[in-house]
């Protein structure tokens, strides 16, 4: 699941080295926190959040394969 988000994010941004995905497990659910360079935020969110939504939908399929629930957060770079 983490690999899926890493792959998509790295493929879409201008600065793949700054892509970071942290996975936090809590019981049967996994929270993924995606961090990218400030300039790349728009690329992983998209107009009206379309890219983020599409990533969440694909993530849901990946999670279902492992009988898990997931949540994807895109965190603000400091």
């Amino acid at each position, binding site marked *: 699941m983490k690999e899926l988000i890493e792959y998509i994010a790295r493929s879409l941004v201008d600065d793949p080295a700054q892509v970071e995905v942290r996975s936090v497990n809590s019981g049967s659910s996994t929270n993924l926190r995606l961090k990218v360079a400030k300039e790349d935020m728009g690329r992983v969110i998209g107009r009206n959040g379309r*890219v983020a939504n599409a990533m969440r939908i694909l993530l849901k*399929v990946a999670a279902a394969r492992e009988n898990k629930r997931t949540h994807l957060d895109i965190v603000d770079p400091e």
Partner: protein
Amino acid sequence: MSEQRAMLEVIAPTVEEATAKGIAELGIREEDVNIEVLDEGSRGLLGLGGRQARVRLTVKGSQEDESAAPTDSSSPDSVDEDADNALAIARETVSELLEKMGINAEVSAHHGESDNPNYNPPIIVDISGKDLSILIGRRAETLNSLQFITRLIVGKEIGRGTHIVVDVEGYRVRRERTLRDLARRMAEQAIATGRRQKLEPMPPNERRIIHLELQEDPSVTTESIDQDPRRKVTISPVDT
């Protein structure tokens, strides 16, 4: 070359058989036709019986006279190379995404047919395998997300936007057939009742199929109303 021999659709158990049959029927060499796989066929999903493969053979050069569209023929080789490169990248991208989603499936890609001579033909990426309905999702939500992400990744990679269609087990082909039939039925109903018919909300690509199906029909007009995700096509009878 006579008009009706320029294009041929063949149905056979496999793509290979259909292609061979079509070439034999046209009596020409394989190099001289463009082969478009309309439906790869399948051995049957959930034991509900399989579908036959369908291919469309178009004799090369046969459509040039009909479409007066200006096409850039200055460097056909580099265009072809470019298109093949995009094809390979599209296929690899979908494979990569599926692998990371934990889905085991076969991925193939081919060039589709452009329904507008001003645009490049779309790249069609076909996914086949067992139990893939999870990849379609409600109202094709998952399939459309996969397609959207694939377009973005490929676009970024090759530096330009590309029309890519991602399909699972011929779902889009079947869906298109269903939508065309629906469009016809609703048009008849609009004419019979003299009332505007409203269709269910649909994504843009599906609304487009309805509009295209009826655009040549002088007895009805089509229009999309409301906003996404409730946007829907309406079909109105034309007063005669």
